[in-house]
């Protein structure tokens, strides 16, 4: 029974190919835009997530400076007011801070055999790897022993490997920084560019003790260029930021009316806000696309109403040979549902194609979500039922004798 009705419905869809296509165009556009929008939204979300994890989660950066001297205000980082002890004190004194690290750095020339490369050399502690969530490609990080004894060991980023070693294995090779030999003990996994567009892999990490003694002799002892703070959780970020200000002002003996001699940057919060806004955008775009689905449904209802009128005589004949209201209703309902399913399948194909084009041709990261396909398929079924119901109901209400006489 149901198979025959489906056949009847398919038949009447196929007999008016162009009309059926135009009818489902709304559905096609609706479904494909839902899929494309959600895919692009997911892509943006993933991109931001990648950036967040590349700089380390729940990260706060403290830069020295922003001091004024004689009315002239210097930019952040121009004066080295932060110390290693500041970093240690923050970790000890604030309950919201999980860990701290710091860095003394400068761009220096590195030499390996006949190759040379200029890269950011950072002297830091072992917490640095955890806070910035670095992983190893090969070898090992330096440890507390290396720091205590001031070993000349280095962990290098992938960009450095590429430029100095090519295809050679860098582990246990000796590079020269400021003419001093350093043994390469580890290679970092690639991270890519930072949210600010810097190559994070163009880096060489050495124990800060070694750096102080051998590389940055011109820098005052224990002064650092930056402190990294990892808050215990995302919710603690704001509290940690407050604590940092209190503790550092106290340690630096800053009077009430004086400005901070450091500046605090809450990068995670900034990125989370971006993520939130991209989530809202995705939701909004998805919602707008869903509205076009509803508009598509109205298109189906419109054509179904026309179809009912056009086929009044057919309905009359069917009723004359014994079709009940149920038979007529189900016939038109199935036709509407079938139309919307055909539309949604075409829409899904178009949506996938659109998402792939945006990904490949426009490099607009798009991740097709299986959920959005299922949801839009389900939604169009509902649209078919809802907007097919009224025309089907109208058809079933026809009086057999009037339907038969309809010309």
């Amino acid at each position, binding site marked *: *029974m149901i198979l*025959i009705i489906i056949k009847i419905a398919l*038949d*009447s869809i196929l*007999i008016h190919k162009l009309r059926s296509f135009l009818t489902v165009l709304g559905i096609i556009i609706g479904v494909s835009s839902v899929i494309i929008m959600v895919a692009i939204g997911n892509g943006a979300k993933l991109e931001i997530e990648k950036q967040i994890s590349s700089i380390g989660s729940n990260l706060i950066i403290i830069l020295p400076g922003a001091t004024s001297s004689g009315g002239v205000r210097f930019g952040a980082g121009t004066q080295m007011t932060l110390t290693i002890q500041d970093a240690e004190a923050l970790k000890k004194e604030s309950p919201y801070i999980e860990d701290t690290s710091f860095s003394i750095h400068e761009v220096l020339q590195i030499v390996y055999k006949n190759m040379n490369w200029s890269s950011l050399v950072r002297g830091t502690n072992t917490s640095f790897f955890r806070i910035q969530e670095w992983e190893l490609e090969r070898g090992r990080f330096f440890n507390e022993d290396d720091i205590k004894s001031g070993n000349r060991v280095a962990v290098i980023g992938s960009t450095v490997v590429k430029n100095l070693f090519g295809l050679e294995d860098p582990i246990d090779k000796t590079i020269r920084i400021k003419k001093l030999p350093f043994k390469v003990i580890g290679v970092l996994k690639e991270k890519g560019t930072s949210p600010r567009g810097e190559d994070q892999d163009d880096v060489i990490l050495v124990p800060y003790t070694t750096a102080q003694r051998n590389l940055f002799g011109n820098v005052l002892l224990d002064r650092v260029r930056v402190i990294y703070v990892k808050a215990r959780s995302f919710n603690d970020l704001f509290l940690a930021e407050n604590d940092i200000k209190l503790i550092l002002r106290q340690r630096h003996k800053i009077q009430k009316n004086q400005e901070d001699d450091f500046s605090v940057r809450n990068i995670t919060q900034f990125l989370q806000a971006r993520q939130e806004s991209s989530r809202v955008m995705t939701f909004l775009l998805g919602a707008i696309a869903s509205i076009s689905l509803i508009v598509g449904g109205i298109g189906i209802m419109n054509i179904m109403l026309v179809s009912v009128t056009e086929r009044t*005589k*057919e309905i*009359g*004949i*069917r*009723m*004359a*040979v*014994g*079709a*009940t*209201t*149920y*038979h007529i209703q189900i016939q038109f309902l199935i036709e509407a549902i079938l139309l919307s399913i055909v539309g949604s399948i075409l829409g899904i194909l178009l949506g996938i194609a659109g998402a792939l084009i945006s990904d490949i041709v426009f490099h607009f990261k798009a991740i097709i979500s299986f959920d959005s396909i299922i949801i839009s398929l389900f939604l169009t079924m509902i649209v078919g039922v809802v907007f097919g119901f009224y025309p089907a109901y109208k058809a079933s209400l026809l*009086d*057999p*004798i009037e339907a*038969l006489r309809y010309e």
Partner: protein
Amino acid sequence: MSLIKIHNLKKVYKMGEEFIYALNDISLEIQKNEFVSIMGPSGSGKTTFLSIVGCLDQATEGEYYLDDILIKNLSKNQLAKIRNQKIGFVFQKFYLLPRLTALENVELPLIYANVPKRERIEKAKFYLSLVGLESRMHHFPNQLSGGQQQRVAIARALVNQAPIILADEPTGNLDTKTSNDIMELFVRLHRENHITIILVTHERDIAKFSKRIIYFQDGKILKEKRV
């Protein structure tokens, strides 16, 4: 026992302030296995009468018993079932579905009776061959002549083994020779298959194939003649 019993049947239409009596107080009995013709000028109410007998339309007043069932206050779906099981229609303009083949058209009443596919096709083929169209069953209506289309319609009317055939000017669109062929088919079905036939026509030559002729005028029975 009467197959059809009708008492004081009225059908009234309201046109503005005026009431028009399409049927005005018709009383009539038709027995099983009768072949009845209803004649009358156009507007005499004969088609309205046939529609009410066929449960396509409802009377305004009066009683109509079909097989001792009172056809009044029945739901739409109950009426549909009666049309499906007890009545076969043959119309002047054939009323075949153009997108279906002859076979599929004949199957239609069986589909609504929920008959399984294999049985449906068997029955439809049987009745198509009964009307002499077994060689045309996969043709579409527009590939058939008028007479052939009417034969398909007759097969469709018979296929559910309905005891009654209601034919509304079945030869109205056919030439004389084809008309005679169709009428001979009716006579044969009446004689051999014991089908009750009620035929509406305004042609004396067609009516004379039947055994009882009822004349309608202005919604009333004018006279009756038995052959």
